[in-house]
């Protein structure tokens, strides 16, 4: 009997010991994976790209690989429209490149512009420059005071083509060479800056995704 009891106790102790070892090993593995992921993120954030590589990425965005980037822009517009409870046609977006020296809209990278905005509007241009320089989003609201004095009358039944508000979202870090800015505009309905913060939060993800594309392409081309 004693022998049987001792044998049973040994088995239980062995099982507990194995369980403890497996548990420790799993914890160590999870910790290592987390550390590795954090290091990868830090590396990616630090990754510096040559100007040529970024320019090539820009040209890719205008070429055959433009579909993926356009999908991101379309989804960003849909997201902001849903967030602001606006019809999709009242929100539009353009990807602006070649900042700060010669800003221009990337070919094929616009959503809901009836015609390709070859020339940037002053508000797009100024806000994009500020966003690229600061590395932070910029919200621009049409001034209430100037509206009656300077606005062109809009014909009845037509949508006012000038935006009521613009969110300029930098893609990448402040002061980077050949920066991109995602410019998202709302038509017709006014919004206060506070009401647009949730849309800024949503757009940050799309900007980060675009930046990942650029870095990925930059790495491939170096």
């Amino acid at each position, binding site marked *: 009997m004693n022998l049987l009891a001792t044998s049973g106790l040994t088995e239980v102790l062995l099982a507990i010991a194995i369980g403890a070892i497996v548990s420790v090993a799993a914890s160590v593995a999870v910790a290592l994976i987390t550390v590795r*992921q954090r290091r*990868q*993120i*830090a590396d*990616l*954030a*630090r990754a510096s790209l040559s100007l040529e590589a970024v320019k090539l990425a820009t040209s890719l965005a205008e070429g055959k690989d433009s579909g*993926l980037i356009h*999908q*991101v822009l379309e*989804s960003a517009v*849909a*997201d902001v429209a*849903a*967030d602001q409870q606006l019809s999709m046609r009242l929100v539009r977006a353009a990807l602006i490149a070649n900042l700060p020296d010669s800003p221009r809209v990337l070919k094929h990278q616009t959503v809901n512009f009836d015609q390709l905005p070859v020339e940037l509007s*002053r*508000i797009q241009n*100024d*806000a994009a420059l*500020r*966003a690229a320089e*600061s590395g*932070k*989003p*910029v*919200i*621009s*609201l*049409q*001034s209430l*005071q*100037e*509206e009656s004095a*300077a*606005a*062109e009358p809009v014909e009845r039944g037509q949508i006012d083509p*000038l935006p009521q508000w*613009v969110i300029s979202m930098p893609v990448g870090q402040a002061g980077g060479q050949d920066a991109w800015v995602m410019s998202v505009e709302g038509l017709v309905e006014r919004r206060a*800056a506070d009401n647009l*913060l*949730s849309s*800024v*939060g*949503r757009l*940050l*993800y*799309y900007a*980060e*995704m675009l930046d*990942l*594309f650029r*870095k*990925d392409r930059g790495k*491939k081309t170096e």
Partner: protein
Amino acid sequence: MTRKFDEAVVSGTELSDQDLEPSDLFTHLVGKIGPQTAALGTFGLGAIKELVRQRVGLVEATRSNKGLRLLEGWAKLRRG
């Protein structure tokens, strides 16, 4: 004829935790096009979420109750 616009730079601290949650549409997009790109293949939704929080200087220091979150600067995080 032009109209005047008022501009404001948005700092990270103006954004609430709720503002910084990735939307369902974005989550769907990552699932849809993630496998097509090496960048998103390596960095899934969780990593993009962390990048965004780092970018705006707001990082969850803990998963526990509200009030236990730590604000850290982007630069400080990158040094780590």
